[in-house]
């Protein structure tokens, strides 16, 4: 094809393309100067060079270069801005397609990608696309023009990203842009993956990586360093903690060894170790930095890829006598970038090709003293299409060395698949994932980068991250909620996408109206938002005004999370004191619905649902999850039961909300708190830290008592009598804050409600904090123990009496129940003067009018 035929209509004022002009060569520091230090080798284009180079571009209509780019960057578009001298325009255009231009501009193998395809390269030299990409990215940074991308409105969805290499960083950025809350978990103490521990400073200054990471932080991405997924926490834990999706970009970090004798001698390194010591731990600045590395006088690096080249050039900078790069095929087959091979040679790396190591030799003191090698010749092409090296018999030789670096490849670490049920790998150890979406074999888990492809390139990892981010967004916003959205979208028009505390009264009214509630104003006035009279939820600042139509999918997921966290074959109770259509009751109902034909994740199915108990509407659910079968009893407290619960609580002197039956808009019965006779930490903003600091012992007592009751009802009662678990555990699946109430009593302090209290009430000084935390727990355990004893003492009587009064209870209004309990008291000669009443005498209600809301707090009355 004639290039000019392919050219775009051009602004006549612009100069004609100059393809025949010689390609601009990026200035480099002289080889023998640069091979002594770690400063960057190539210094980048000047503005004049960049403009001149971009003027060579023909601005093709069907640009071949774009086809060569793994992420399809619109190359002519950003080049055109450069040619016009509009560098800001250029970088903005570029950033629409790539997140890491300063990095890709430096490390991409352009000669086998975009530049290889460039049409100008057919006759002349191709356009220096990589150097131009680097130029505009550097221009932006150096001119302080970097803008933090606009972050979308919060979606309320949380995504965990494992690994902070190019794949993870890209995914995190893309998801943050779309308004999702992103947390990156990185095993090492510095973010960047291979970009910081592998690729050396002289090729990619770490400052550039740091800026990219800072940019992500500015977008609200949280980066948790020193966190090893699979050890510090698992992917299943992430779901249990409320993450809605997980992206795995953990790379291919497991080094291969040669498997020849002597490999464990001192002085023999994997390239990963050698480069990590040098780059991440800065061993080249030993002893200012304390991590040592051994670089002797005669170094041999084994391999022919970028890693080998980086190791060789890094070793060279430590001033040895010689650095040999030993490769078993010929130079033409070396997978390293052409530019790096050329840099290496210029700097003084000796290439020893068609040579393979056979054995490392010992100096007698445990150090490597030499390597026995064998010469190779190229035979028939192998599966990869490259000619297979075949040893030449009798060609063994010994090369004297005192340091060896093995750079023959990496594969993915198996820690994550080993610790994640349902995450499948290929026989090469890479994760199985859909190429276009990154979807793995586990629902909600996506993956991309080297962990999927095996060791590849930065740009491929970035591209995979981008594709996965789009798929995750889709998963979060569309598919996962399809069922709920289909049902509620029309009526709610985005209502529940807003966090509950931020809903305005108008929005609430509109919702109630849309649901067909008669007299919505009076409905609201009855404090209906507090249907969720669950006692310990009173301590949940986020349940201030939970609405009855919450997204049940979320709950279904929590249920699943709770189920998955259980040991095999353990029967557990999921206990919910939630009322009305919210909570687990709803979750199970939706599971039930799904059982009847609505699609479920393939490995998750409800085998059966049986009603166990009318009074509390307990159900037994048998679930097939990832191939195993689990029986879970879900004790759903209905409104009547809630009345019982609150009445019992009152009798036992346990703080609670007194409840009354009210029909919900959907026709369910719900209990509504009518008298706030408990402790409500409703609005953390309105309650001073002072209050928490003064009152925490009281608050802890109340929480403990309530939880004792909740546990008691959840674990020790019901038609099937006792629940069998391996630990003294009860599972309370409820709202997110209380969701993980499956810790043994001794470990409760890790629960959200406690963390909340800790955070509010504890002094900042860590030492003092730890001490107070201990007091907290002692206090909790004491109060819990006392309450549990009290409950146990009375429970048999209560239940027996309730059973005989079941009819009354079922049809009860608060009044009838009181009668029932009156009989109860007579029968069992309870002291009708409840402890709670006595407690009231020492408490005064404080109304926090400051925030203009009915927030009730009980404060211990100061003794006069």
């Amino acid at each position, binding site marked *: 094809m004639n290039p000019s035929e392919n050219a775009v209509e051009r602004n006549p004022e612009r100069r004609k393309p100059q393809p025949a002009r010689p390609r601009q060569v990026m200035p480099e520091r002289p080889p023998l100067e640069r091979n002594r230090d770690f400063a960057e080798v190539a210094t980048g284009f000047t503005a004049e060079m960049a403009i001149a180079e971009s003027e060579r571009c023909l601005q093709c209509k069907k640009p071949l270069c774009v086809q060569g780019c793994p992420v399809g960057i619109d190359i002519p578009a950003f080049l055109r801005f450069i040619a016009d001298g509009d560098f800001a325009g250029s970088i903005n255009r570029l950033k629409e397609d790539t997140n890491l231009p300063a990095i890709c501009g430096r490390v991409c193998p352009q000669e086998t990608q975009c530049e290889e395809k460039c049409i100008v390269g057919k006759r002349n030299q191709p356009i220096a696309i990589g150097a131009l990409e680097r130029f505009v990215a550097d221009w932006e940074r150096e001119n302080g023009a970097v803008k933090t991308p606009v972050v979308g409105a919060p979606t309320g969805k949380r995504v965990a990203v494992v690994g902070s290499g190019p794949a993870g960083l890209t995914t995190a950025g893309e998801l943050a842009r779309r308004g999702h809350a992103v947390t990156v978990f990185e*095993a*090492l*103490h510095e973010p960047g993956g291979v970009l910081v*521990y592998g690729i050396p400073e002289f090729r990619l200054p770490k400052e550039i990586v740091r800026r990219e990471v800072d940019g992500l932080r500015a977008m609200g991405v949280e980066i948790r*360093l*020193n*966190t*090893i997924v699979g*050890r*510090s*926490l698992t992917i299943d834990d992430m779901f249990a903690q409320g993450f809605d999706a997980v992206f795995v970009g953990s790379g291919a*970090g*497991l*080094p291969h*060894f040669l*498997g020849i004798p002597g*490999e*464990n*001698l*001192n*002085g023999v*390194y*994997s390239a*990963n*170790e050698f480069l*990590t*010591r040098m780059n991440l*731990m*800065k061993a080249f600045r*030993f*002893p*200012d*930095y*304390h*991590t*040592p590395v*051994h670089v002797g006088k005669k170094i041999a690096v084994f391999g022919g890829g970028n890693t080998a080249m980086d190791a060789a050039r890094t070793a060279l900078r430590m001033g040895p006598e010689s650095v040999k790069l030993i490769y078993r095929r010929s130079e033409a087959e070396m997978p390293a970038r052409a530019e790096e091979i050329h840099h290496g040679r210029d700097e003084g790396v000796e290439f020893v090709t068609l040579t393979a190591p056979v054995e490392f030799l010992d100096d007698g003191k*445990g150090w490597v003293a030499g390597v026995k090698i064998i010469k190779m010749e190229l035979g028939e092409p192998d599966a990869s299409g490259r000619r297979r090296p075949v040893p030449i018999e009798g060609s063994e030789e010994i090369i004297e060395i005192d340091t060896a670096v093995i750079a023959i490849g990496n594969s993915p*670490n198996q*820690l994550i698949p080993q610790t994640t049920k349902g995450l499948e790998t290929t026989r090469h150890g890479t994760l199985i994932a859909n190429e276009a979406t990154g979807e793995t074999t586990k629902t909600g888990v996506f993956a991309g980068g080297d962990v999927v492809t095996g060791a590849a390139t930065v740009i491929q990892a970035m591209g995979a991250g981008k594709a996965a981010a789009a798929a995750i967004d889709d998963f979060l916003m569309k598919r996962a909620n399809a069922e709920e959205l289909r049902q509620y979208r029309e009526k709610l028009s985005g209502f529940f996408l807003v966090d509950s505390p931020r809903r305005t009264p108008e929005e609430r009214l509109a919702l109630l109206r849309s649901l067909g509630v008669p007299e919505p104003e009076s409905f609201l006035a009855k404090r209906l938002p507090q249907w969720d009279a669950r006692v310990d939820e009173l301590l949940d600042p986020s349940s201030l005004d939970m609405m009855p139509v919450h997204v049940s999918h979320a709950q279904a997921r929590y249920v699943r999370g709770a189920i998955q966290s259980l040991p095999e074959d353990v029967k557990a109770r999921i206990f919910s004191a939630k009322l009305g259509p919210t909570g687990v009751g709803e979750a199970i109902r939706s599971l039930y619905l799904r059982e009847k034909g609505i699609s479920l994740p393939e490995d998750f199915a409800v085998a059966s649902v049986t009603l166990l108990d009318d009074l509390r509407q307990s159900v037994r659910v048998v679930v097939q999850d990832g191939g195993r079968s689990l029986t879970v009893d879900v004790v759903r407290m209905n409104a009547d039961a809630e009345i019982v619960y609150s009445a019992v609580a009152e009798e036992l002197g346990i703080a609670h909300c007194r409840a009354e039956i009210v029909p919900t808009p959907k026709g369910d019965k719900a209990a509504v708190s009518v008298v706030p006779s408990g402790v409500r930490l409703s609005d953390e903003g309105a309650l001073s830290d002072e209050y928490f600091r003064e009152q925490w012992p009281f608050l802890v007592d109340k929480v403990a008592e309530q939880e004792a009751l909740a546990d008691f009802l959840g674990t020790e009662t019901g038609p099937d009598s006792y629940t069998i678990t391996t630990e003294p555990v009860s599972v309370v699946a409820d709202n997110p804050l209380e969701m993980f109430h499956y810790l043994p009593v001794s*470990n409760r*302090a*890790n629960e959200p409600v406690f963390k909340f209290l800790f955070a509010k009430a504890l002094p900042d000084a*860590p*030492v003092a904090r*730890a*001490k107070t*935390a*201990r007091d*907290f*727990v002692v206090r909790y355990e004491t109060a819990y123990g006392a309450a549990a004893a009290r409950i146990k003492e009375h429970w048999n009587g209560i239940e027996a009496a309730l059973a005989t009064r079941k009819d009354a209870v079922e049809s009860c209004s608060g009044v009838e129940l009181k009668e029932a309990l009156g009989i109860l008291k007579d029968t069992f000669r309870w002291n009708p003067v409840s402890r709670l009443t006595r407690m009231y005498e020492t408490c005064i209600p404080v109304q926090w009018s400051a925030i203009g809301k009915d927030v009730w707090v009980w404060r211990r009355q100061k003794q006069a």
Partner: protein
Amino acid sequence: MHTIMDKRLLAPNVYRLEVGAQLIAERRKPGQFIILRVNEESERIPLTIVESDPVAGTIVLVFQVMGEGTRLLASLEMGDEIRDVVGPLGHPTEISHYGTVVCVAGGIGVAPMFPIAKGMADMANTVISIVGARTRDLLILQEEIQSVSSEVLITTDDGTFGRHGFVTDALKERLESGFTPDAVVAIGPLPMMRAVAETTRPYGIKTIVSLNPIMVDGTGMCGGCRVSVGGQMKFACVDGPEFDGHQVNYAELANRQRMYRDKEACKIRSLIP
């Protein structure tokens, strides 16, 4: 940042630190370790987690000042911060019901041994502990180990306390008198673990040792911690740190542990102005 909540000198040059690390404190199991980096310049140092308090969010580390890294760590005081702590790393000890378990600890190996011995006792094992130290002053955590063992034998190399001799002397004597435990766990200096393994080998008693090669990342990424076990290459940080004591190539490991001897000396010199 991880705050030092408490610091105690247990014996000359042996310190006990309580360090804030909530997540690790909640998750760790006996036999696991952490890697810490005191500050920007310092090395990554692996240390076994001795105890943890999930409520206070602290972990307990016991270490002996050996090289530059531990010297720097020992220079920190209560309230000071450690820059990075990552963990829990490695596989937890296989704690189950064996029957009778002998826990052999040398030097500060008692510290990581304590949670294991406790775990073994909790699983209704009869725990016999053999604790050795160079000299009386270096014996630590005696009370703790007593509290979980049905019998404790103490040896000192110089005879200043307990039996004069090595832990293996005590172990050997027992074995020779016909006593056959169901498992032996040994933690301490490499030569000691090797000697324990050699002592039990003729009797075919399951012997677990906890290896401490030089490490960098602790995640299986560098291979610096590789050891030969039963002729196979294993990464101690992810495949271990505990291995079958009868399968370990101790000579190779001992050699690898010496890799940076000369550099240690160089570092220390550089710190003395």
